[in-house]
């Protein structure tokens, strides 16, 4: 008889240099179950999963597969047991074909012990067919695939190893809506084949859509595992942060000031004929699929991309900004989407990061007013309650949420009139998200105009005063959320160019 509990982790403990990060964690998954694993950053999810993959050694506790206690747990042992992790960042060799990526390290051999390329190709073809990708040749270079297709290749690799438990760490963070649906279809297919899926995500909507059950972790402890039908959104969040959440989203802004920015028929290679107005004290949301032109619109306003035609008027006057420098001088600020690539100086200190855009204020020729700099930095550390060891701590050592707060501080320090936020809560845990939502409201209330770009629909719907929807470089709809209520389906309708069904 086969036990239906495919995986059973019991009383797992783990400490790093004396700090206990997992306390007696139990984690049980059934065959064919999709289990969401949630918790704030530092709750111990990643550590638990790395123990499951054999990357970290557990201090105590047991791991059982099909009711058999596995001793001497290690990376190869985990692989033998069919445990496969699909990482958040794609780890494929970009310049090798799909087939060689899938069978890397376990290539089929011919009699002469050389790699059997034809067999490899054939097996790859079968795997791709299983994933509805029969139109893609096994010889295609990974570089030529879209991100979601690359993810499918990772799944194919997992399948090739006869995976029984697949761990997915935020698999949708760089996928478009359509690609997410495709991924979900494959996850359900795997489920039907009896594979157990452990699904780590910060996106609540997705968890409710895909998971059968949810495990909540907090401070290295297993808090609760429940059937997804038996819990509510706010219960999960409450258990994650460990306190009652009175208001996850701040109340809608009611009073909006005068116009500050107007785009008339603005176009470049990526955006087409955009007309838009922005008012003081408002939060203008921008929704749309990935690649719809939202980031590109922000970049055009901020002077990173050129504007080829059309006009921007700013505070009633014609505005021609050629660079981010011009934009900053004129009181604009942009918190970019990819904070590691475009936002942070990881190897520099918190203070350096926070003041890089306002050096004029405390450096005069060769005179540096260190005290002034420190007081500016202290101010923001206080105001945004950034958790850190000191001003001189390096940015790389902070958690995602605190890194984002450092970037917020850097731009708030410039005292902007317009603040553009591109996916400000991506990859940030619930507690920090909430803080950022409330912070945004405060900023807007002080008269700053905010443009909020987000792929989380509930976020833009709940925070924006008006909500613009973009599709293929065009602004297809603007909802006035002070006057009308909008559903996610309505937004998706316009985001997909009117092709999606409105229910």
């Amino acid at each position, binding site marked *: 008889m086969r036990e239906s509990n495919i995986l059973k982790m019991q009383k797992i403990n783990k400490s790093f240099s004396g700090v206990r990060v997992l306390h007696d964690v139990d984690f049980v998954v059934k065959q064919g179950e999709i289990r969401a694993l949630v918790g704030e*950053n530092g709750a111990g999810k990643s550590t638990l999963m790395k123990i499951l993959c054999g990357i970290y050694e557990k201090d105590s506790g047991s791991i059982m597969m099909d009711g058999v206690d596995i001793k001497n747990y290690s990376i190869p042992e985990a692989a033998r047991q069919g445990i496969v992790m699909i990482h958040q960042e794609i780890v494929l060799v970009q310049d090798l074909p799909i087939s060689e990526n899938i069978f890397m390290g376990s290539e089929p051999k011919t009699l002469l012990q050389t790699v059997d390329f034809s067999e490899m190709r054939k097996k790859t073809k079968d795997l791709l067919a299983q994933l509805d990708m029969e139109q893609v040749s096994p010889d295609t270079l990974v570089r030529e695939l879209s991100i979601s297709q690359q993810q499918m290749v990772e799944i194919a690799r997992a399948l090739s190893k006869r995976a029984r438990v697949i761990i997915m760490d935020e698999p949708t963070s760089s996928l478009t809506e359509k690609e997410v649906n495709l991924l979900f279809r494959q996850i359900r297919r795997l489920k039907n084949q009896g594979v157990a899926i452990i699904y780590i995500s910060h996106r609540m909507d997705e968890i409710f859509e895909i998971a059968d059950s949810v495990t909540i972790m907090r401070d290295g402890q297993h808090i609760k595992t429940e059937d997804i039908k038996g819990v509510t959104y706010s219960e999960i969040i409450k258990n994650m942060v460990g306190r009652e959440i009175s208001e996850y989203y701040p109340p809608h802004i009611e009073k909006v000031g005068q116009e500050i920015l107007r785009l008339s028929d603005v176009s470049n290679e990526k955006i087409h004929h955009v007309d838009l107005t922005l008012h003081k004290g408002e939060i203008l949301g921008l929704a749309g699929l990935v690649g719809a032109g939202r980031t590109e619109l922000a970049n055009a306003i901020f002077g990173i991309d050129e504007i080829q035609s059309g006009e921007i008027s700013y505070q009633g006057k014609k505005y021609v900004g050629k660079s*981010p420098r011009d934009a900053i001088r004129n009181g604009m600020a942009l918190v970019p989407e990819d904070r590691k690539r475009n936002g942070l*100086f990881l190897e520099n200190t918190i203070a350096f990061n926070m003041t890089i*855009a306002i*050096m004029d204020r405390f450096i005069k020729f060769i005179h540096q007013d260190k005290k002034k700099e420190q007081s500016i930095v202290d101010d923001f550390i206080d105001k945004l309650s950034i958790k850190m060891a000191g001003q001189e701590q390096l940015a790389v050592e902070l958690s995602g949420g605190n890194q984002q707060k450092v970037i917020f501080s850097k731009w708030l320090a410039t005292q902007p009139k317009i603040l553009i936020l591109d996916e400000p809560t991506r990859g940030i845990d619930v507690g920090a998200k909430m803080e950022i939502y409330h912070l945004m409201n405060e900023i807007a209330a002080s008269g700053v105009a905010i443009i909020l770009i987000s792929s989380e629909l509930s976020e833009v719907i709940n925070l924006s005063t008006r909500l613009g929807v973009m599709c293929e470089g065009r602004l297809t709809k603007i909802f006035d959320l002070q006057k009308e209520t909008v559903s996610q389906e309505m937004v998706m309708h316009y985001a997909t160019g009117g092709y999606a069904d409105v229910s």
Partner: protein
Amino acid sequence: MSVNKNSYIKNNFVYKFIKKNLMILIALLIMFLILAVGTDSFMTGKNIMSVLRQISINGILAFGMAMALIVGGIDLSVGSVMALTGCLCVQIINNGVPAIPAIILALLAGALCGFLNGVIAAFTEIPAFIITLATQQCFRGIAFLMTGGKAISSYDEVFCSIGTISVGPVPFLVVITVMILAFTIILLGHTKFGRGMYAIGGNKSAAIYSGIHVRRIVLGSYIIPGVYAALAGIILAARVYSAQPGAGEGYEGDAIAAAVLGGVSFSGGIGSAGGVMLGALVIGFMNNGLNMMQVSSYWQMVAKGLVILVAVYLDTLKKSKRLKIKKQEG
């Protein structure tokens, strides 16, 4: 908030300097001890001053190299710039121009060389390694063309005295080096330009988003090494009373070594002038000490190579430790 009595000490720049450069300071100290005990003539004022005089050239080059490295590039052309400007300077003097204006012209020529490197680095996507490898050839070629391939001697008294005169007990060359050190410290640590350099070297894209004049700063970060190299070239020519088109060959290697030993990151964004000075001191005293202990110059090369490897290895160790901590938290 750390408002305890230690905070003053902790913010003190001497404390910071020692903490940041602890490894290399210890290395320098051990070397001093060994040499002081192991040889008779090392710990004499005369020897120390002579080593410091020798270090000046590599030190000055290393400050320039550090700038190019910090901004995320490298300058392999410094040796050739030395030869080119040295030859130019002596040639101008030999044509009857007084030494001071000739030196100024040579420094400007160095700035022009750096400007060429900088323009290409700032406005194209060609890697700095390739740019300066190419200009290294060009500048060297021009030096040979200018002199017809021959060394040119100088008999100008003012010019030749640069290498020998002293300010009190301190050789003039040491004074120049200290001035360049001070200038570099101020530029890197106290100006917007310096912060911009660290920002660009740390994350160029983020620097653009932060409104930093990326091109202007990159340009400047190559002009200064050019000027420094010219200064080194003039000093070298003055010390040997002649300018040679083949001078300074391979000097970029020692400059890179000093910078890296002094904690400058090869991937940009990290480094300090004080550390580089220590790096140059280690290399200088090591050469001198090994000479005194009568180690053959071939073994000296081996030793220098090993020291660089060990130093950089220790540096990477520090980095990977930090990454590990980060991973455990995540």
